[in-house]
Each structure stands twice: as structure tokens, then as C-alpha cells.
């Protein structure tokens, strides 16, 4: 299995999309950080920032970890995952690697590498951001009392863990679309459609609730859209309460939302494996 993962990494590290859709995040963060540092060294330090308090300061320092789980970040991830899986059809290369290894291992290796690269890019960007914060502190930007390294580490680990859930979900569905459609374009379009539907869900749920209240409530609780938003909310401290009509809300615990998303990811993964293992590669 490790060899399949190494092979997938060897393959992707040379592909332009890995730079344009994954490494672009830490690269942009590094460039912006460098530009700000150069500006400060030329223009001199500005007025010190007002004291925000330790909790706010630490929360702000995790901002970069929120990008990969945002719509823009997940769009990039979806495009990359679609390329990783559907690219083999475009290049006609399943015929090269399928005789060499079990199909399920090839798919699992792709999941691991796609997820690993996106997570690595996110961690790299976060570390660059933290380094910039540390440089600012050394140069005199005040750090509120109560900000400690363990507190920062705990906050970043928590924010990172929350960010990885929607990333895993995005990869699982993009992979499924790629295997089912065998088309890069179709996989990208379907993945983006899913993200758009997710964004429209609150409006659609509120609009449709008076027409079919029971059905809408079931769908909100069963489909992944609300739960992804809810997990994002819990990452900031409190879950999302969806107001369907005055007096009727959906508000679920973090554990419940994680369980529903885990079930959807597992279902998408099972469907991907089942479909690919039975697929004829003409």
C-alpha cells in the first residue's frame, strides 16, 4: 500500500495542477507575508494594534486554516481531486497501473495522497502565517497576556481538524463523480454544483419548508449540507441554527453532524470502490 501511495505522490508532484490548486495556497501566503515584511521594513512599523485579548488574538491566528474549508478552498480541492481520479481516464493510464496493483489500493492511494497534499499545503500555509506572527511579535507588535505556545498549538490543531472534515467530504464526492462519469469536466461540474447547492441550502430550506415541512426537515438533517455548515460553526465555538420558520429550528450537536458527514463520506467511498472495481476499462 505504501508503494502505491509513493507512486501516486511521484506522479502528482510533477503535475501543474498540484501547484495551481494545492501549493498555490502556501505560496500565496508566503508571498503576501514576504511583501508585508518588506513593506514594514521600508515604511517602518505602524501604530501598535489595539489589545484584542488572548482569545481573539489566538482565534485570529487560525484564520488561514479556514480557507481550505471555505467555498473557494473546497472548489480548488474538488478540482484537484477530480483531476487525480478522472485524469487516469483522460490519459488512458488506468490500463498501465490496474494490472500492477489491486484496484482498491489504487483508489485508496489516490484518496490518501489527495487528502495528504491538501492537508500539507494547509499546514504549510498555517506555519508560514505563524512565523509571520512570531516575526511581528519580535519586531514589537504586542502579544496579549495569556497567549502561550500550548494555547496556540491547541487552537491550531482544533481549527485544522475542523477544516479537514469538509476537505475529506469534498474529495470523497469529487472522486465518486470522477469514477462514475469517467470525465474530468463532468466531475468538476458536479463537484462545483454540490458546493453551490450547499450554499443555497438555507434559502431553499426556508422557501420549501411551508410546502413540505416534514420532508424538508428530514432532508436538512439527512443530507450533508447543513452538517458541513454546522461543523464549520462549531469550529468557531457554536453550531449553526437553521431557522426554518419562526419557532422551528434545526440545531444539532457537533457529534451528530460529524456522524452524518462520516456516514456520507463512507457511503461515497464505498460507492466509488464498488463502481471502480466492477468497471470495464476499454
Amino acid at each position, binding site marked *: 500500500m505504501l508503494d502505491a501511495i509513493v507512486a501516486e505522490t511521484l506522479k502528482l508532484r510533477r503535475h*501543474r495542477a498540484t501547484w495551481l490548486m494545492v501549493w498555490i495556497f502556501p505560496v500565496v501566503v508566503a508571498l503576501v507575508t514576504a511583501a508585508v515584511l518588506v513593506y514594514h521594513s521600508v515604511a517602518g512599523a505602524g501604530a501598535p494594534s489595539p489589545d484584542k485579548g488572548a482569545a481573539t488574538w489566538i482565534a485570529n491566528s487560525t484564520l488561514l486554516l479556514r480557507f481550505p474549508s471555505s467555498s473557494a478552498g473546497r472548489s480548488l480541492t474538488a478540482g484537484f481531486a477530480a483531476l487525480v481520479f478522472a485524469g487516469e481516464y483522460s490519459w*488512458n493510464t488506468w490500463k498501465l497501473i490496474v494490472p500492477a496493483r489491486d484496484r482498491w489500493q489504487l483508489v485508496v492511494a489516490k484518496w490518501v495522497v489527495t487528502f495528504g497534499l491538501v492537508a500539507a499545503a494547509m499546514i504549510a500555509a498555517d506555519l508560514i502565517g505563524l512565523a509571520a506572527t512570531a516575526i511581528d511579535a519580535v519586531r514589537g507588535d504586542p502579544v496579549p497576556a495569556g497567549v502561550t505556545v500550548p494555547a496556540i498549538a491547541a487552537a491550531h490543531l482544533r481549527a485544522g481538524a475542523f477544516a479537514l472534515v469538509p476537505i475529506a467530504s469534498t474529495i470523497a464526492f469529487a472522486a465518486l463523480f470522477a469514477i462514475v462519469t469517467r470525465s474530468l469536466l463532468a466531475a468538476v461540474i458536479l463537484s462545483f454544483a454540490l458546493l453551490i447547492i450547499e450554499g443555497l441550502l438555507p434559502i431553499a430550506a426556508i422557501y420549501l419548508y411551508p410546502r413540505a415541512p416534514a420532508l424538508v426537515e428530514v432532508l436538512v438533517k439527512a443530507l450533508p449540507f447543513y452538517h458541513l455548515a454546522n461543523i464549520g460553526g462549531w469550529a468557531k465555538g457554536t453550531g449553526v441554527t437553521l431557522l426554518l420558520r419562526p419557532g422551528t429550528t434545526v440545531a444539532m450537536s457537533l457529534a451528530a453532524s460529524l456522524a452524518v458527514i462520516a456516514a456520507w463520506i463512507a457511503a461515497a467511498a464505498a460507492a466509488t470502490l464498488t463502481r471502480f472495481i466492477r468497471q470495464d476499462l*476499454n
Partner: protein
Amino acid sequence: MIEEAPALELRGIGKTYGRGDGGGGGGKRAVDDVSLSVRRGEVYGFLGPNGAGKSTTIRMALGLIRASQGEALLFGRPVADRTGLARTGSLVDGGTFYPFLSGRDNLHVLARTQSNRTADIDGVLARVDLAADAGRKFKGYSTGMKQRLGVAAALLNEPDLVILDEPANGLDAAGIQDMRGLIRGLAAEGKAVFLSSHLLHEVEQICDRVAIVSKGRLVRESTVSALLGRGEALRIEAEPRDAAIAALQGRWPVEAVADGLRVAASRAEAPEIARLLTAAGVDLFTIGPDDRSLEDIFLSMTSGTDA
């Protein structure tokens, strides 16, 4: 001594696309009830016109396509078992590789996918005369270079069975000659080689046995020499033909062909045939061995297909 199972064995294998059985009940039967076996140390040719089911058969043997009926065995084990696939190298579709990687990196990726950490990548690249271009991206390769890289990939895991789908496609005359030597060399090393080709002259020169498929069915399997029937027939030009046929029928099987007669008789019987025809008042112009090419036989067996 225990005899090892054939390197490749197809047992009544078939493939039907779509719903149904490929007959009147719907579906399209691409391959139907093909059985053959390939032994180690032999070069086995798989011939057929376009659309005859050659590529589908090869893909079933490699586990790329699921058989609708029958089974494919590699070294006595079902393809799904994968132990046989680990001893098999293959070239399909003229070499399919990642266009953004170099030839060498493509082989690195394949070797690692095979869990082959000691692959002699430079060795196989040199063997197919691609060492000088190994650093270039695959998308810049010519058709012949792609084909050679495909052969290098097929040899990467030092296989006991090499399956090659149209290995001479895109090669120039010198390349074809090199390929011929390479394939015969593989057989000399004790490997089994199963190749499909439409270059019948090449197949005639390098294969020990051949199978001919037409419309998805196996129409003939034989050694090349038996198929060609060398020394087993005479070709005669004589006039009038009807009188010649009348004179010879009863003694030898006679068949009217485009430019004369084909008589199932040995070379030693030629003088007797000549005397018989002369005695019957038939003018005899030529008499000699009937050396039909594989192409003649192939066309006669597959006529009526879309070749």
C-alpha cells in the same frame, strides 16, 4: 517433473456488452467462447481483423475487462487472484503513460506501483533503445518512441509472460526488425509471449503458434508451419482447367484457386501429376509447391468481416 500450468490459458472466455446474451436477447457479443493456451518459451500470435475481439480478449486476460463467460488463467490462477498478473508484463493501446512525466519517471511510477523497488529502469530503457530520450516528457515522444516505452514497461518486472497488443505499430523498418529480435529473445529466455498483430508477415516470422479470431470467435489455432501447410500442396497452372480437374480428381483433392489449381499432394508426386495431365491432353504451364502466405490463409478465414 511437475509440468507448470500454461502461462496464459483462456477457457471459453467471452464478453457481451450491454444487457442480454449478445444473441437475439440484446447486448453486443464482442468475444464468444475463446479457448487457447500459451506455454512458456513460445511466441503466440493472436490474429484477426479490426473489431474481431483481439483487444477485448487481451484486456480480459489482464483484468481490465470482466469476462461475461469463461475465465482467464495466468500461470494456472484466475486473473482476479493477481499472483499471475505479478508475473505478467503488458503493452496495450500502444503504450499509455502520463504525458507530463518523462519516460524514465513514468517507469519509476509504474515500478513503484508494482512494489518493484529494484527495477532496472535504465536497463530496460537501453534494451528498447530509449536511453537517450528517457528524460524527455512522454507527450513529446513520437509514436515509435511511445511504443518502445510501452515495451520497456512490459519488461520492467522481468515477467514470465509478456502480452503485447500490436507491438510493431508505429515502428519503422529498423524498429520492427529490433522488435522481432527482442520478442524472439524473450522466448529464448523461456518467457511466454502473447501478441496480437495485423502485420501478418511479422507474425509469420516470429510466432510459433497462432490463433485466428473472426467476429469474436476463434476460427483456427495451429502452429504456423501447420497453418501454412508448407510441402503439403502443389500449385498448378494448366489449361483447360476443367480437363485438368477431371484428370486429377479421385487421386488427390483438387481445389480451383484464382490462378490455377491447388492439389493436396507432396512434392514427390509432382512428376506423376505432370505425366497424368499430359496424358489427358492438358497443357501444363507450371507446377510447384503451394506456398501460401499467412495473409492468404488469414483472408480466406476471415473474409466477410470488416477487415
